[in-house]
């Protein structure tokens, strides 16, 4: 597991849920882990919603100064620089959706590239209307790369239909995910799905715990 891991993708692809679970997984191996919620796009559902759970496990949580408040101000916290520049902590960055979200990443990219100990995963959900196919998903990947100029290193297939998801829905997207891996030239690193689905026979399975929903 690399020192810095970034999750990018189309908005609503499931980045925050995966970022939170990935941080828990990192914490099993490393003492110092931090998760930075740098999503400047989505005002409602975010990884910050799991703040108390993360902090209980000793994971530092860095959030936008005004996230989950009434102030709709997309400012990035200075602490994120610390995460990227100081190399003694394993950092997970939950990046906002699409190219717009990834734009905010640009200022950190020189530091990340200089250290060159990072993974940047593209999170794909083939049930999202604008990324129904590998070709459409590749289009979003290219837009994100153009915005932040940091090359992706792998693909996570997080295809799901929310609470209605059954195992078959996940299995049926494997071919599309493999096609995306092929046309992008990147490895398919995980197939993520809700842990309530039990064990599913998919490439590199990664069952995840979903954030709590209130309605």
């Amino acid at each position, binding site marked *: 597991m690399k020192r810095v891991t970034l999750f990018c993708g189309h908005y609503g692809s499931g980045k925050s849920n995966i970022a939170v679970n990935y941080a828990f997984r990192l914490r099993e191996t490393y003492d110092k882990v931090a998760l930075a919620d740098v999503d400047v796009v989505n005002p409602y559902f975010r990884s910050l919603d799991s703040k108390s759970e993360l902090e209980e496990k000793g994971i530092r949580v860095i959030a936008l100064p005004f996230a989950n408040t*009434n102030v*709709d101000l997309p400012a990035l916290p200075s602490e994120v620089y610390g995460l990227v520049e100081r190399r003694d902590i394993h950092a997970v960055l939950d990046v906002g959706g699409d190219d717009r979200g990834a734009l905010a990443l640009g200022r950190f990219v020189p530091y990340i590239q200089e250290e060159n100990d990072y993974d940047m995963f593209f999170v794909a959900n083939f*049930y999202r*209307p604008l990324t129904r196919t590998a070709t459409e998903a590749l289009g979003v990947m290219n837009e994100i790369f153009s915005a932040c100029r940091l090359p992706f290193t792998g693909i996570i297939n997080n295809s799901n239909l929310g609470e209605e998801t059954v195992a078959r829905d996940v299995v*049926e997207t494997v071919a599309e995910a493999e096609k995306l891996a092929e046309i992008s030239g990147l490895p398919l690193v995980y197939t993520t799905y809700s842990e309530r689905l039990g064990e599913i026979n998919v490439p590199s399975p990664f069952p995840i715990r979903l954030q709590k929903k209130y*309605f």
Partner: protein
Amino acid sequence: MSDKVLMKGNEAIAEAAIRAGCRHYFGYPITPQTEVAAYMAKRMPKIGGVFLQAESEIAAINMVYGVAGTGRRVMTSSSSPGVSLKQEGISYIAGSDLPCLIVNVQRGGPGLGGIQPSQSDYFQATKGGGHGDYHLIVLAPSSVQEMADMTSKAFDLADKYRMPAMLLADGTIGQMMEPVKLAEPVEHPFVEKEWAVTGTKMQREHHIVNSLYLVPEQLEKKNFERYERYKKVEENEVIYESFMMDDAEYCVVAFGIAARVSKNAVVAARKEGIKVGLIRPVTLWPFPKKVLSETAEKVKGFLSVELSMGQMIEDVKLATSCRRPVGLCRRSGGMIPSPDEVLEAIKNMQRGEE
């Protein structure tokens, strides 16, 4: 792969509008409805449609006015403060008898308010937020699937009655993601409308789109004619959902996200032996007056659950002619009541009665 897709409520509105034949979108970004515009910006250019980010909400609604005059399907979307800005244009569109769709993904108010969900634009939507005698058809979705279905329905009703329709959603339903089965796109070949401004080609009389009538007799006649149409809407287009009402002694009334929370509370109350049900107005105008009036004969009391200081409660009282007590369970400013809070309010209503 499943034929369902996982969508945000805002995206569902945009995609459903496109599938309903809308090729003209004018808007201005505002949280929590910006995804409608973002989705349109991505999709419209690919299908020969028009997406235009106007310089303001006022400009956007007047662009809607223009396209509506040509008889084509057109829409705009915004959130509360932005919808306030549109009110003048909406009044002009209503006064010109033109169909269009206006989406309000409500946030807390008044003023600039906040960005969290709210239902406090109920008065504005149902009582005419602009000036003059007019109504909008107002639909209140309570799921992402309904965001899609009602967008399509709103266009149909607007066309049928030649009047603007409003989708009155809230930030929660706009932002939440749920699986949606989208309707197949319907081809809407442009049908020449007897009133649309499409160019005379020197072969017919001019069609005039206008809301100015300086002769009072003429303006009064127009308004009476319009209200004849509104009467038909009230007779034919009321939609509501009835939930566990068969043997109910108490009736919760709630729409949109408040109805979702209330359903959970009704189920919890039933488990405790309280005979309570829910009536969910789906059309807020026309309001389901008749069923509420009939229900007043059967139940001991009503509870209006709202994300506002209490607005729909007035219509509940009117519809039931205050024959039964009407309680209020409310949150405001972007807060949502928990099912427990609604359950407590149901219990209070029961204690007050017995």
